[in-house]
């Protein structure tokens, strides 16, 4: 009896499962537990804790309720506009015969590959006014009076987020529309119903699960995004939950920050969880026969107006902001083009007369250091997340126990519900406080890597699961039959067959990691500089050209790697077929 138990325990899959659960426990469960326990007073008396400060005290309005209101407002705006614009573009690309659809389709996927602060910085470069000092934006420089509501606060924060997330909505909705199949719409057109009626009665309801999930994703991202409100709201004290959380922790009110982090997690997780529940039962299974491309709607005279609108939209969120950022890095004085152009901010030696003597980005030791750290960080996270994701996916595939499958799947999903900045706070609570049982890693490279892996696990797990899912179980069973052991099956059968998908997944993890600001903004110290955080600091301190130049570098890396990764994953987009 003892022997059989021992043999079972040492079976490779059992060992692997135990290992995966332990790692997920440390990376996902433990940080959340320490985050919560750090806010529970030792004597159990909540009156003296940070909870009443944040929720009920006289300063709670400023600390929590107004930021909550702002977060929800921004999120609602982001969700509505992203979904409407994404659906419009998806319709143009998949169902209409508007000219230039191919190029619109490519451009529409790019904003999501850009770092979310790129658009915010570009907005600021154009619309910034004199209200908070510093050099005014391009419009103000040309003598245009930019009103506060256009330069700062809810509207620009929301629009900067929309410019980023409509791209995600587009991807989701376009895939759903393309997946409907041409027959479904042809069947409706054959009844003689008008285009409008087919759209309203058939196409939109049939893709409603996609519309809803795009809405909820954009909402959750809107609640938790940090970069956009930090750059366009914070200077005028337009606070959201994430900027408040950042403010509390960076000014030493760590416990208050933790409480805000918990509340932020609750808001974001609730939205995403409800969304998943609502959409789960509603995905319409469509029986597919031959894949028929939808017949395109003939726009006739409306073709050019539709084209103008759609291409204007994608140009305004891709080419235009990148062009603005590029242009500003060459202008001698921030946002002014009448003082001439220079390459100083890219390659110039230190000059005491310019930017407090800061050298151009390619001559700047601190930035070169940050570049190296960023790349190492991205690679370590990509490798770690994919290995963990693969092992977790394999354990789920081979394990017969529903409890094991359930726990691994749940733990791998949870970080998806947690806003980056709150996850950062949780890692401080676990690895950065004296009361934690684990070693203090705050200020080291490794806390960044661990947090990065934790944040990337949901994506890495899903990618690995679907990549492994491409390999039929029978292929592996055939290897079992001829006597191949677990290690051999993984390395000789599963990995070679799923390599493309997994490599593509690793590249996307790399991209999302290096361009992300919210996760690392609380974890970075001068010893471990990262490009995204350097950009943020430069922007805060008014070194526009430097901030914009680094953003362009990150954007170039992001977009290139994203396109490459899509290629690798064989994603000829469903709407291009």
């Amino acid at each position, binding site marked *: 009896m003892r022997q059989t138990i021992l043999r079972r325990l040492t079976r490779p899959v059992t060992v692997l499962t135990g290992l995966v659960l332990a790692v997920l426990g440390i990376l996902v469960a433990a940080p959340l537990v320490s985050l919560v326990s750090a806010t529970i007073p030792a004597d159990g008396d909540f009156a003296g804790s940070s909870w009443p400060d944040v929720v009920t005290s006289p300063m709670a309005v400023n600390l929590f309720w107004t930021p909550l209101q702002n977060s929800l407002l921004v999120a609602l705006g982001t969700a509505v506009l992203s979904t409407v614009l994404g659906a419009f573009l998806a319709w143009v690309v998949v169902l209409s015969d508007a000219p230039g659809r191919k190029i619109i389709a490519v451009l529409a996927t790019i904003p999501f590959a850009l770092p979310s602060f790129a658009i915010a910085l570009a907005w600021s470069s154009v619309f910034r006014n004199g209200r908070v000092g510093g050099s005014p934006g391009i419009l103000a420089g040309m003598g245009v009076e930019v009103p506060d509501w256009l330069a700062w606060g809810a509207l620009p924060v929301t629009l900067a987020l929309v410019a980023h997330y409509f791209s995600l909505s587009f991807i989701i909705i376009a895939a759903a529309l393309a997946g409907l199949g041409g027959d*479904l719409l*042809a*069947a409706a057109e054959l009844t003689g*119903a008008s285009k409008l009626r087919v759209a309203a*009665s058939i196409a939109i*309801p049939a893709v409603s699960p996609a519309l809803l999930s795009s809405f909820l994703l954009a909402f959750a991202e809107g609640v938790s995004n940090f970069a956009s409100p930090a750059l366009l709201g914070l200077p005028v004290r337009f606070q959201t939950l994430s900027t408040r959380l950042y403010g509390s922790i960076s000014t030493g009110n760590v416990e208050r920050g933790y409480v805000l982090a918990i509340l932020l997690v609750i808001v974001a997780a609730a939205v995403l969880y409800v969304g998943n529940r609502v959409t789960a039962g509603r995905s319409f299974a469509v*029986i597919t*026969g*031959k894949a028929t491309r939808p017949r395109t709607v003939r726009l006739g005279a409306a073709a050019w107006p539709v084209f103008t609108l759609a291409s204007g939209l994608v140009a305004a969120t891709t080419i235009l902001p990148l062009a603005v950022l590029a242009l500003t890095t060459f202008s001698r004085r921030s946002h002014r083009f009448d003082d001439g152009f220079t390459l100083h901010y890219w390659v110039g030696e230190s000059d005491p007369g310019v930017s407090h003597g800061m050298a151009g980005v390619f001559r700047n030791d601190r930035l070169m250091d940050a570049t190296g750290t960023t790349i190492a960080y991205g690679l370590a996270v990509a490798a770690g997340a994919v290995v963990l994701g693969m092992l977790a996916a394999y354990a789920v595939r081979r394990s017969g126990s529903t409890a094991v499958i359930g726990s691994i799947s749940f733990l791998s999903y949870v970080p998806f519900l947690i806003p980056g900045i709150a996850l950062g706070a949780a890692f401080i609570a676990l690895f950065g406080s004296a009361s934690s049982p684990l070693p203090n890693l705050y200020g080291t490279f490794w806390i960044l890597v661990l947090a990065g892996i934790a944040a990337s696990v949901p994506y890495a797990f899903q990618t690995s699961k679907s990549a492994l899912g491409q390999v039929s179980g029978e292929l592996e069973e055939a290897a079992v039959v001829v006597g191949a052991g677990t290690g051999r099956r993984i390395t000789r059968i599963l990995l070679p067959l799923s390599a493309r998908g997994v490599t593509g997944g690793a590249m996307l993890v790399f991209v999302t990691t290096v361009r992300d600001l919210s996760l690392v903004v609380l974890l970075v110290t001068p010893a471990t500089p990262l490009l995204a955080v350097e950009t943020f600091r430069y922007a805060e301190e008014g070194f526009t050209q430097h901030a914009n130049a680094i953003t362009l570098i990150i954007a170039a890396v992001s977009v290139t790697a994203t396109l490459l990764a899509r290629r690798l994953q064989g994603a000829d987009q469903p709407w291009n077929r």
Partner: protein
Amino acid sequence: MTETTTPDVGRGASITVDRLVKSFGDQRAVNEVSMDLPAGALLVLLGPSGCGKTTTLRMIAGLEDPSGGRIRFGDKTMADGDSGAAVPAEKRGIGMVFQSYALWPHMTVRANVEWPLKVAGWGTAERRRRSAEVLGMLGIDHLAERYPGQLSGGQQQRVAIARTVAPRPQVLLFDEPLSNLDARLRVDTRAELVEVHRRSGATSVYVTHDQIEALAMATHIAVLKEGRLEQFGTPDELLENPQTAFVAEFLGSPAAVLIEGTVASGELMHEGIALAAAVPLPDGETLSAMYRPEAISLAEQDGTGVDITVLESTPSAGRFVVTVRRGAKRIAVVSETRYPVGARLRLVLPEEPAALFDAEGRRWDHLA
């Protein structure tokens, strides 16, 4: 099927297809296809995959525009590929059952059937009555409140048919509607489709690659191959009098047997056996002789005939369909007895073949 429903006989339109062409790039998917289909007929477009049958159907439907040639319903031109003029699909009075069924996933069965009627401007009571009628006709009235995702493949198929016939179209189009069903269900549904066609009175066009389905259902068959029409006619005409070797070998279960011979001194010879006499062609020309499988018999090795090896014997209606191998070719004949696998036998051929085909596969008639 209830008998209370009123058949809508006589609503069909005749369909004329005149030198129809569809090109994709420089490839001709449909090449100069012509046929005349009387009102109320059930035409099966038959052929291997890629032969252009679905493209032809979609052009009749108006889902694709022809690159050349004309389609007429009755005396009304529906599409003219030469001038580019086309009546839009929804104005042609057609109903179409798609291979994927194309049921709207967010609507109940009843709503799927009623929505086209609503679009056509029917009143609520009338819609309700008609949907009850067609759902009853197909025996799925108890599923009216379900969603398509909750139905089996066979049930979804019936919903698709109900939805298509409800508005009483003049022309019914079916794009391989049975290909997603299992073998048993396919046979049952086939019979129901013929009944639906008969009751509706609509002229129907049906696409399939299954020749048994075609022979069972059709009043007319058009056999297509690589975009060209091989032969158009009634099932009997095609079986009795195939115009090409392809049609001869494609239709029938088992299909006709073709044996190739070479002309020598006015006789068609195959390895020393005379297949046909009085062939006025120069020596060395090759022709294929066609025999009906029931006219061929199998004999032990020592007789005269063509050497063959038995591959399998399948019982069929008290007799056996014996598949044999002749060189690289498989031939099926009908036999009274079962032969063991691997048995070496001879094919005993009748005096004269039923037809001859030339080297290009065209019918060769020495009287002509």
